[in-house]
């Protein structure tokens, strides 16, 4: 019997990421996170635990924050995927959340930052008037080891308040 290696069962997948189609070949077992990082070259999506707890790999899938380490690339076909690389404007202007994280010192080592940015982008886009308590609850989805969270919360709140003003 011929042995079948995992690579032999790779399937073609089209991923639409930040408005651009990426045609890649991915084994069915390949996660969306690995595919984004290694096939699409988008290494801003980080892997902190690979079991769905830390949220460093959070991306938006049709506007919803998801753990890209818990999804297979083949599941994301046909969806609009957004990653941290797509947040800034085409001219390089930082997204208001990126500006706010900078101004409020919402990052130190920066490893969790892409996940928090995508989580908070998803939260504010779907619930622009989210209350303080609900916002804290939403942000408790992700882990940060450096900041103690306070400045992350302040950053996101400031963007919410500015948009509502």
């Amino acid at each position: 019997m011929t042995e079948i290696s995992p690579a032999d069962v790779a399937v073609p997948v089209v991923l639409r990421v930040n408005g651009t189609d990426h045609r890649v070949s991915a084994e069915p077992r390949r996660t969306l996170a690995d595919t984004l990082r290694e096939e699409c070259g988008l290494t801003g999506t980080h892997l902190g635990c690979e079991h769905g707890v830390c949220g460093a790999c959070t991306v938006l899938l049709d506007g919803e924050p998801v753990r890209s380490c818990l999804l297979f690339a083949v599941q994301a076909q046909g969806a609009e995927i957004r990653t941290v690389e797509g947040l800034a404007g085409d001219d390089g202007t930082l997204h208001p959340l990126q500006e706010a994280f900078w101004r409020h010192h919402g990052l130190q080592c920066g490893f969790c930052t892409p996940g928090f940015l995508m989580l908070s982008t998803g939260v504010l886009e779907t619930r622009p008037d989210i209350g303080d308590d609900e916002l804290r609850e939403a942000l408790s989805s992700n882990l940060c080891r450096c900041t103690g969270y306070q400045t992350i919360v302040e950053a996101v709140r400031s963007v919410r308040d500015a948009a509502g003003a």
Partner: protein
Amino acid sequence: MSWVGRSIRRVEDPTLLRGVGMFVGDIGGAAAVRFVRSPVASGLIGAVRGPAYTIEDLDADGVGNIEAVLHRPDYVRLAQPLLARERVRYVGEPVAVVVGDTAAEAEDLAEQVELDIEPGPAAVGIDGALAPGAPLVHPDESDSNVMVAGEMATPGLAEALDRAHAVVDLETVSGRQAALPLEARGSHAVTERFGGRTTLHASIQAPHMVRTVICDLLGMPEADLRVVAPDVGGAFGQKLPLAREDAIVVWLSRRLGRPVAWIEDRSENLMASWHSREQRYRLRGGFDAGAHLEALQADVVANVGAWPCYPITWGVEPLMALAELPGPYTPEHYGVRSRGVASHTCPMSPYRGVSRPAITLALERLMDIAAARLGIDPVEIRRRNLQSEFPHTSPTGLRHDEGTYREAMEMAVRHVDLGAFRSRQQTARAAGGSQPGIGICTFSERTGYGTPAFAARAMGVTPGYENVELSMDPSGYVTARIGASPHGQGLETALSQIVADEVGTDPGRVRVVASDTDRTPYGWGSFASRAMVLAGGATYLAAQQLATQLGSVAAEVLEAAADDIFLADGRATVAGTSVGVEIAELARIAHHHTQRLPDGAAPGLSAQAGYDPAGTFSNACHVAEVEVDPDTGGVSVRRFVVVEDAGRLINPMIADGQIRGGVAQGIANALLEEVVYDEDGNILTTSLMDYLPPTVAEIPDIEIMHLETLSDATVTGAKGLGEGGTIGAPAAVLNAVNDALAHLGVELNEMPATPERVREAVRTATGTPAG
């Protein structure tokens, strides 16, 4: 206008915010390395079958052993192989290594490797390792598991305890914690096809030290290895010691002639990276009638795991406890025995605060228990005991420079309004249900360790100094090449502020180059709250030299005396006049028109400085307010106040960030995080479902106030504060939990104070208030 003291935004941030930083796992283009790790805590290795490299391959290539040395008679010296040889000593110890084209293939290959291991008995936990007849971790080198044992006593200790008005005995326990950087460890090595030079990118804190030890192990000149720490996703001490895996990655890239990378997964990180803090303190405090701590006796044991860490060794936790235990207090008599005991568990490395969270827990519980016993307030007993005359020399000979131990506490207590809290507490006690509690913690944080401090440890290598090279290029921009290796602390920004003030430019014209052995002077890296003091001091000294050079060029150009030249806002100006010249123009002249320089002046603009102070002490007071549900054992932290004195603050925003992050880790230490082994040495906490770092739901906003006692022990007046949050928070929280339940007679001296432990303490409480 001074740049130092301003909360300017960090220069590090835009890259990280855009997701275009470069962490080790982002480099790519390499074969994947996977380690095959021991599934048992203790055992003899038989055959290893499968497509793997083992210690025999390393031996065949003449790869050496790691020797983490302390020159002490009570220290057991070992030679540690890079892969397990003959026996395994903890679950997760690397036994073999495989290389696959992809990470998935490497995992598949690792699963094909069969390890024949004859399991043996395991020594687990402090009591398990110390028990008579305990299985020995290193039976060939030692007939006990005690690997280092320090002891000292001042004369008259026993008599002082005998004549004490009150003697308080206390046992405190700190659970085993993991530093848990969000980016696990990893390394990536490429060896040039011609010339054979290797470049290692690794997620580490001390690239120069790592280059030295890897070259020693592999028998290669340091000039042939470039070590780079790219963006590092948190470290907290866990990335300070040599990772054996990193040395193997270099060996594989040279042996195979292809790029290889090892990206640690979270399970490996929790199981087999480094752990910390498993310690037990038995204290006896002798207080006089005025509640002054006259005599302190301590027996300390740290479970240091299966192997020492290089270069710090497994003496770091027990010996720090020995040296620093009196903390901010002033016992005249002090005696201590402090042991590091090996066990069949993951090795220990320093983690933010090292022993001081546990030291502080022990001392601060002692103070609260003594206060209750003597019928005085926790604030009052500290008022009577904290250092107030400086410099203060501790019983172990440490010189404490000026601090504000009492002032910080008074400020914190005023801020929380203790009186109002106590009346709320009375109401809650009458009502039953969840109970509020308040806890105070005062502590010192020894920082800025230079060579003298490390030399006292008698390590095989003595870390210490930092070097900085500064140059101004012809465009007028300054490049600072530093030996320290920042990884999220904002050091680049802070150093640029120091340079800007001295050289009269703005921080946007300063570039800091770090973490690359090809581009920076030899230095020790970022750890032990030292970078601001050490690298900051060296930067300050080098910038002063650069300013002097600029001044002499300006004096020549402006036909003025060098002493009359002021550098500010990008210009060199003659004092009292508007006559001046752009600094950028001086930079052009210094490089391109050297005929205009004063006679004998060297061309260009560059300076080098080293800095190597003895060390300094920051101090702080933390106050925690908690709410404890006696029925569920659940604890939530409602309020947290910090009054910190870290000397001059270079960038207050960055300083506050360090404090907040540290406090969060300290709260986690107090309530949540614990590495757990079963009695056979199987680790039970290998995922983030079992090991519980806090989320935003568990961490309140931290209210921070500062005092600024400019240190005379450092050239910048800065003292360093990277670890303080982690040091003080556990004791503040434990004191608060005890305060909340004091009316039930609860005494809980073990952390983390998990719901299970709180319930146990409530169940076994005496029912009468402590004291």
